[in-house]
């Protein structure tokens, strides 16, 4: 039993990271129908930026946090300006291809600047684990889960009560009418890319603090992708929940079957779920318009 619970808890912790990345996928997809295949790379890039800041500032927590925010805004703005905006009016598919190119580019740039070896994140907490009902929890894992919950609540409230958040949902339903309401769609895309980069950056720093900072952070993006599909690509909170599910399933598969199954378990789950619910657990079925 405690083996099972430990697996579940560890799954939740890694699932929270997946969930955050998946929220980023969903936010961008929601407003623009674009799947951003560079999500994991953006997480890695911002992770590295904050790593450099941590190195030079003796791991000052406020400065690391600030660097995540500044990094996310910078990355989001650059991508919107140089990749998304020039592609406006082009088929969505072309932009999706551009995000794949972007992913390759970020990986190359990160490799050039920081090299290919993983590092320990400066000041990463190695506090004694807390034991509860036989489950061992690192304080940083608990912190991660708290951040995950806070982000979910924050994003939910933003989409529900903030006019820009409402505009994102409106644009997902009918982008032409959003234009008629005076929404500047390019400004909306900018906000979406920044929020998505911000959440990815937070996930990146937490990941780096729990494990390490290295080029393999980018792979987390691919592992998180099933989470977004599972939750419904246009449902931000659904995607966040999908992350937890994928994390737990992966860990259980790794713990009870064989660690080799860990990587594919998430994809098996979406295969099954998509057969039953083609739009994911919480996805909106497109409403036909005449």
């Amino acid at each position, binding site marked *: 039993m405690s083996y099972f619970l430990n697996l579940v808890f560890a799954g939740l912790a890694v699932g929270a990271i997946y969930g955050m990345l998946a929220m980023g996928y969903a936010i961008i997809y929601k407003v623009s129908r674009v799947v951003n295949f560079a999500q994991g790379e953006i997480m890695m890039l911002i992770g590295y930026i904050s790593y450099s800041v941590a190195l030079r500032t003796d791991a000052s927590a406020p400065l690391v946090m600030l660097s995540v925010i500044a990094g996310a805004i910078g990355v989001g703005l650059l991508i919107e300006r140089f990749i998304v905006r020039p592609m406006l009016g082009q088929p969505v598919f072309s932009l999706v291809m551009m995000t794949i190119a972007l992913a390759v580019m970020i990986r190359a740039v990160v490799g050039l600047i920081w090299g290919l070896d993983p590092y320990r994140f400066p000041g990463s907490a190695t506090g004694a684990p807390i034991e509860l009902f036989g489950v061992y929890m690192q304080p940083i894992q608990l912190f991660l889960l708290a951040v995950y919950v806070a982000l979910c609540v924050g994003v939910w409230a933003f989409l529900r009560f903030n006019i820009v958040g*409402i505009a994102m949902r409106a644009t997902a339903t009918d982008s032409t009418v959003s234009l008629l309401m*005076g929404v500047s769609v390019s400004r909306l895309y900018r906000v979406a890319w920044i929020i998505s980069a911000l959440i990815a950056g937070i996930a990146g720093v937490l990941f780096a603090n729990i494990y390490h900072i290295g080029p393999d952070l980018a792979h987390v993006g691919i592992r998180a992708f099933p989470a977004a599909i599972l939750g419904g690509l246009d449902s931000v909170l659904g995607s966040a929940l999908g992350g937890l599910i994928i994390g737990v399933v992966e860990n259980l598969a790794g713990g009870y079957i064989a660690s080799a199954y860990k990587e594919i378990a998430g994809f098996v789950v979406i295969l099954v779920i998509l057969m039953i619910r083609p739009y994911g657990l919480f996805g909106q079925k497109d409403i036909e318009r005449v």
Partner: protein
Amino acid sequence: MLSQAPLNADLHVVNAQVLYDGVVEAVRDVSFSVDAGRIVCLLGANGAGKSTLLKAISGILGPEKGALTKGSITFAGKGLTALSSDGIVRKGIVQVPEGRRLFVNLTVEENLLMGGFTVRAAERAVRLESVYSLFPDLTDHRHRVAGYLSGGQQQMVAIGRALMSSPSLLMLDEPSLGLAPKIVEQIFAAISSLRDSGDIAILLVEQNARLALTISDYGYVLERGRVVFDGDAATLLGSPEIQEFYLGLDQSAGRKSLRDVKHYRRRKRWLA
């Protein structure tokens, strides 16, 4: 907002030509004007180019690969053609699109708030209450998902949504489409009371010519992308050509919608 509206909030479309895909000419050499405090209607059968004109004014032809290729559109003395669609809304021009096009999975209130996207939050709250007082029926449904409302209620939301930004020019694309006569009457009463309330100019696109002319001050008739008649509403209602072709009053005295007239004409063409 209203107090800042320029006194001469008139719309002038001059010699407009609109092409889709660079070749399909949907509007050809069309000119018309709408003055503040008046309802002007654009009449015409399916495909006449009415919606295209409204899209050109709102600056949303781009996503449909359309473009204003000749002519000019000015509002309150300033050209609109260089503005983006959100800039045009900020100038005070709003349209209620054909088929209502509510954000179906947002609530009624969220739909209305979206209409006030360009105004400040405090102003938005004030406008919200005034829309509820114009359409009291909506108050009970404010937290319902808009897609589940009846057609008439949806049209009220669509008009209310457009009014949220206190427009100086309100454009309505076939507000009577698919609604029961009783509801249409209600909607049209609301439209004419808006005009009577003052500073707003209204451009009304309709297939239901008789109904539109009864509340309009002036009318233009479009046919295959060109203006073929224009005149005071009363003149148009009385003119024999209009009566025959657009009001369907020649042989049968009964009311016919333009759609019927059009089918009748098409049948005639096939028979010929």
